[in-house]
């Protein structure tokens, strides 16, 4: 791809990210952006930061130099906001809240996402992993191709969510079908039909959660929804049913498309770099290093979907970002910035061996879970799902191979898959 010619003048990075060349491989363009237009202003006036240091600074400064849009302001940033259910739900999610409301709501949820709580889920996650691999084994052993994305990568986080939310598995599979459409509707480049499809799917999710909340209120169990219903009932002034629905909707959106994509990327890395498989065959630190490197190389959410509004004029790299501008961060680019990660396009788990999760041996932050007050609530849940999956996939199917080219979702925003066909190598071949 001739990046220089294609983007000698980049009018709109968001449009460029939606181009066929970028859908195939967005990293050459991201490199061009970092080198030539690191504080990019899009045609619509949104700013996009692509250098690691700038991104980390902006994420850290959220709640200070940047804030989420106030509810009444949303129409200014999203002209279609007033009429769109998806954008209204987004406006009420945790990711759009400012302190102190954000702090309070986040702590209500955090009690179910402590490191200990997530660690307690390990046996459940391991059981689901084993069951999904068992389910795939007969077809694979008959020599057939299996879609690992649908049968494993997407199924695992969906089943984990069903467990967390106290929902029947079939209900979760039903809801999950609409999540991709909602995510696309929230992209800054979404068309009207995309937003309409997102709103239809959001309406189904909203109706389902409305019913689920009523059932958990009548018959509470040990799950997140029951816990949040309890918090709501004790404190009706500050956590409405609408906010509760937005929170659950936000967890679904943030939770499993991204986790599924990272499982897909991890399996692809395993197949593309057989010499790196040893990381998955030793101790937990080796598995962790592999997982972190997969997360670094392919951030599933390439840029931030939530607006960060500049509270004042901000000068960054010689560019003035005017007060009240909507600033987004291209975290997939920050993860490939050579100023943070040497030889950034090389897959090398050694960068993360023996370090604290999310930090390289050079002390650089891996950005895929964000940073600052909106740091991914489900980061550890995702890490545990990956750590419980990858060694088992490799041990169970050591001759796993691609059965065809993986198909990506045509998204400028999410680096996710539609299908990942795999098979086992024939014996002796």
């Amino acid at each position: 791809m001739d990046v220089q010619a294609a983007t000698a003048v980049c009018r709109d990075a968001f449009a460029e990210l939606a181009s066929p060349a970028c859908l195939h491989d967005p990293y050459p363009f991201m490199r061009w952006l970092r080198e030539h237009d690191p504080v990019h202003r899009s045609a619509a006036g949104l700013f996009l930061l692509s250098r690691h240091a700038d991104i980390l600074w902006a994420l850290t400064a959220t709640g200070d130099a940047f804030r989420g849009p106030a509810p009444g302001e949303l129409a200014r940033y999203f002209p279609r906001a007033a009429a769109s259910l998806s954008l209204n739900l987004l406006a009420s999610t945790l990711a759009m809240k400012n302190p102190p409301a954000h702090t309070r709501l986040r702590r209500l949820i955090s009690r179910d996402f402590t490191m200990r709580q997530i660690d307690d889920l390990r046996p459940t996650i391991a059981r689901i992993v084993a069951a999904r691999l068992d389910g795939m084994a007969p077809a694979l052993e008959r020599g057939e191709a299996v879609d690992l994305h649908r049968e494993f990568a997407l199924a695992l986080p969906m089943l984990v969510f069903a467990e967390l939310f106290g929902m029947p598995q079939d209900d979760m599979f039903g809801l999950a079908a609409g999540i991709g459409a909602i995510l696309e509707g929230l992209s800054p480049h979404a068309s009207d039909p995309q937003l309409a499809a997102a709103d239809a799917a959001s309406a189904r999710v909203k109706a389902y959660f409305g019913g689920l909340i009523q059932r958990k209120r009548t018959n509470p169990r040990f799950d997140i929804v029951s816990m949040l219903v309890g918090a709501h009932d004790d404190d009706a002034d500050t956590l409405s049913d609408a906010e509760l629905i937005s929170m659950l909707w936000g967890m679904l959106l943030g939770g499993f498309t991204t986790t599924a994509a990272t499982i897909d990327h991890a399996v692809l890395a395993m197949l593309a770099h057989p010499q790196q498989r040893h990381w998955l065959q030793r101790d937990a630190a080796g598995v962790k290093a592999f997982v972190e490197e997969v997360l670094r190389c392919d951030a599933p959410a390439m840029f931030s979907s939530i607006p960060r509004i500049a509270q004042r004029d901000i000068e960054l790299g010689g560019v003035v970002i005017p007060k009240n501008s909507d600033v987004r961060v291209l975290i997939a680019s920050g993860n490939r910035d050579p100023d943070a990660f040497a030889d950034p396009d090389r897959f090398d788990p050694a960068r993360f061996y023996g370090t604290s999760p999310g930090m390289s041996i050079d002390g650089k932050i891996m950005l895929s879970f964000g940073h600052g007050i909106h740091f991914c609530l489900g980061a550890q849940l995702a890490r545990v799902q990956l750590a419980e999956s990858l060694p088992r996939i490799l041990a169970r199917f050591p001759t796993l191979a691609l059965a065809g080219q993986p198909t990506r979702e045509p998204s400028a925003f999410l680096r996710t898959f539609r299908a990942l066909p795999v098979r086992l190598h024939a014996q002796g071949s």
Partner: protein
Amino acid sequence: MRVVVDQDLCGTSGQCVLTLPSTFRQRESDGVAEVCVATVPQALHAAVRLAASQCPVAAIRVIESDAGDDERGSAGPPPTTLEAERHAARDQRHPGGYDGTV
């Protein structure tokens, strides 16, 4: 060395607990981080500085104590908030924070 978590700032990410489970823990009620040692053993000084620099909301403050500080782990009483504030004001050096603003 001592370490304190600003519990008003804490973003409940749990990163510090992942990094140093012997030094930090999360409150069951809301996920807010707490320090579970009075003083940080010498062997963990570098790791605690790293944990502080990695905290997504910069809620961890390392208080480098004067020479002669005891290294008896959790034997001593935890510092009070006020004492910690005084130490922080005197000793805290921001660990290489990036300042992109003007």
